[in-house]
C-alpha cells in the first residue's frame, strides 16, 4: 500500500461485500426460489449468474437471496425482484441468458423485461 488512493480503491471494492451486513430496508432484492423443485429445474446456476452480474457491475445496493417453493413448480426456476416503492416482479423459467438481460434492463435501467414475467409466459 503506497498511497491513500490505493487504500480507498481497496476499501470501495470490499465495502461492497460488507455492506450486506447492514440492516436496511432500501435496496433491491433478488429472490431466487430454491426449493427442491427450483434446484432440480436449474435455480442454482441462475442464482450464481445473478451473483456474478452483481459483483461484475459492482451493484452494492442489490442483495441476492433465496426462498423456498414459490408454489408454481412447473414454471421454475422462478425469481422475484423487489424494488423499493415498486410492485414485485416475478420472472419464470429462468436461465443464465435471461439473467444478463434482467440485470441490464430491469435492475439497472428500471424497466422490467415483460416477456420473461409470469404474466407473459402463462398466456
Amino acid at each position, binding site marked *: 500500500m503506497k498511497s491513500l488512493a490505493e487504500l480507498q480503491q481497496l476499501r470501495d471494492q470490499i465495502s461492497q461485500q*460488507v455492506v450486506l451486513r447492514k440492516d436496511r430496508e432500501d435496496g433491491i432484492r433478488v429472490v431466487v426460489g430454491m426449493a427442491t423443485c427450483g434446484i432440480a429445474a436449474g435455480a442454482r446456476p441462475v442464482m450464481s449468474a445473478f451473483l456474478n452480474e452483481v459483483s461484475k457491475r459492482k451493484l452494492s445496493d442489490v442483495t441476492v437471496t433465496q426462498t423456498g417453493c414459490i408454489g408454481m413448480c412447473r414454471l421454475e426456476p422462478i425469481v422475484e425482484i423487489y424494488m423499493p416503492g415498486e410492485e414485485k416482479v416475478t420472472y419464470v423459467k429462468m436461465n443464465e441468458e435471461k439473467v444478463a438481460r434482467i440485470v441490464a434492463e430491469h435492475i439497472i435501467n428500471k424497466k422490467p423485461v415483460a416477456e420473461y414475467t409470469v404474466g407473459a409466459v402463462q398466456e
Partner: protein
Amino acid sequence: MNIYRSHVLICGGTGCTSSGSNKIHEEFDKLLAEKGLENEVKVVQTGCFGLCALGPIVVVYPEGAFYSLVKVEDVSEIVEEHLLKGRIVDRLLYREDEKSNEVKPLNEVTFYKKQMRIALRNCGVINPEDINEAIGVDAYQALGKVLTEMTPEQVIETILDSGLRGRGGAGFPTGLKWKFAAASKNDQKYVCCNADEGDPGAFMDRSVLEGDPHTVIEAMAIAGYAIGANQGYIYIRAEYPIAVRRLQIAIDQAKEYGLLGKGIFGTNFDFNLEIRLGAGAFVCGEETALMNSIEGNRGEPRPRPPFPAVKGLFAKPTILNNVETYANIPVIINKGVDWFKGIGTEKSKGTKVFALGGKIQNTGLVEVPMGTTLREIVEEIGGGCPNGKKFKAAQTGGPSGGCIPASLIDTEIDYDSLMSIGSMMGSGGLIVMDEDNCMVDIAKFFLEFTVDESCGKCVPCRVGTKRLLEMLEKITSGKATMEDLDKLEELCYVIKESALCGLGQTAPNPVLSTLQYFKDEYVAHVKDKVCPAGVCKALVNYHIDPEKCKGCSLCSRKCPANAITGEIKSPFVIDTDKCLKCGVCMEACKFDAIYKK
C-alpha cells in the same frame, strides 16, 4: 472478487467462544461444503455482539436473522432451512420477551435501540483477523487523511476540540495530554496503549481488541504522528489470549500492507508497534507502574510529577491512553468534530461502553451516549434484575468507584455527575445489585480485592487497606461498635490523602459511598446485630416456620450437621448451635418453610 449472497456471522468474542462458538463455526464450514454452498455463503468470525448471556450468537445476512443460544446440533437446521431454502429458523431467533414471543428487527430490540456504537462500531460486523474486512469498513482512512492532509498541530486541535476524554478511568482530556507530549522536545517519544483492564468484571477493552484490533493500531499511529513518536507499545494482560493473538495478527497484516513500518502512505512518517504482556496485576494499569513494567522492572508506581508526557517510558515523553479512548479517534477524524460533539453531555462527549454484570437480565456489553440515565441502562437495555427482584444499587468504577443507590437511578451518567454523587466512571464496569445484596458485604468484596492487589510499596495502602478490611469483617460478624464505624470513616480519609498511587487513593471509595447511602445497613449490623439482606453469615440464623412446615423430614435428611430434628408430620426445628449455615435445608424444603433471619 467473489460476491457471496449470504454472510453467516459467528460471534468469536470470549463469552461465545467459551460457550462453544468454535465448534459451531467448524460445523458450518463442514455442512456448507457438503451442500456445495461454500462459494455462495461466507462464514465470518466476529467480535462480541454484546448479548453474551445469550451466546453463542449467530447472525445471518442479508436477512439480519439474529440467532441466540445456538447449539452445534442447530447448525444443520440453519443450513438446510435458512441457507438452502431461505426459510428463517424461527425457533432460534432472539426474543426479548419470552411471553409475547415477538421477533423484532435488531435495531428495534430494546437491548440495541438505546445503544450507539462508536467504539464498538465494528464488533460483530467484521472478521477481526482479516485486514481486508477492516479496510472495507474504513480502517486506516483516518490515518491516510491525517498523514496527507493535516499537520500534527491540526490533529491535536481536532482531538482537543472534540472534547474526547480518557475512557480508562479519570476522564482526562485526550487532546490536552497529546498537546503536552507534543510540546516536550525530544528525539525519542512513545505512544502506549493501556489494555490492562484490571477492574473485576470489566471486559470492554478486551472486546474492542478482539473485535476490531485495527482501530487501536490506526489510532496509535495517528497519536504517534501528532506527538512526534515512531514507536508504540500495547500493554495487555496475558490472560486475554484471544485478544493478544488477534492483535498480533492485525499488527502483522498492517505491516504487510505497509500501514505500519517505514514511510506510511508514501510520506516520511514511520511507526512501529509492539505488544507487551502483563501478568495481570491491577496496579499495573496505573500509568507509572505500567511503564515500569514495560521497561522490564517491577510493576510499581512512582510519584508524579514528572508526568509521563514529560518523562515517561524509558524517561522519554510518552502518552498513555486506554483502548476505548483510541477506538474513538479514527471515527472523530473521519466524521468530524461537530458530529462527535453532538453526542453526549456538555462536558462529556461521545459514548461510553459498559460491561453489565451482577443481578441483571442481559449481562453483556453496551455502548450508550454519555448522559443516558442509569434507569435506561439497567431497566431498558439491561432488562432489569432477574426473578422480579428489586434494584438496589449499581457499582461503577469497580474497586475505585462507588455505588449509585436506587434513589438516584435517574442520574444522567457522565464523568462529572458520577463524581458529584461519590462514584466515578472508571473504565466501565457496571455491577448491578438487588435487594438480596448486603452493601457492607459488597464493600468488603472490593476491599478484599484491593488488599490482594496492593503492590505494597507504600504504607497507607499496604497496611491501611488491610485494617479497613479487618474493620469491615468485624462489622459483618456483629462484633463492631458505633465507635468503630466512626473510625472506619476516618481511616478512609487518611488513606485517600496519603497513598502514593491511584490504587490506594481510591481504595476506600466503595466503603465511603456505601456508608453515605446505606448507613442504616451498617448500623443494623452494629447495633441490632442483623444483616437486613440476610447475607452476612455470622448474623443470620436459619429457622423453620412451624405454620408452613409439613414435617416431611427432607431437610433433616439433607443437613450435613444433623442440626434439624423433629417427628414426621409435625414441625421440625433447627438447633442454631449446631447449624453451619450452609443453606442446604432452605433449598431442599419444598414448602418454603425455612427462612433466614
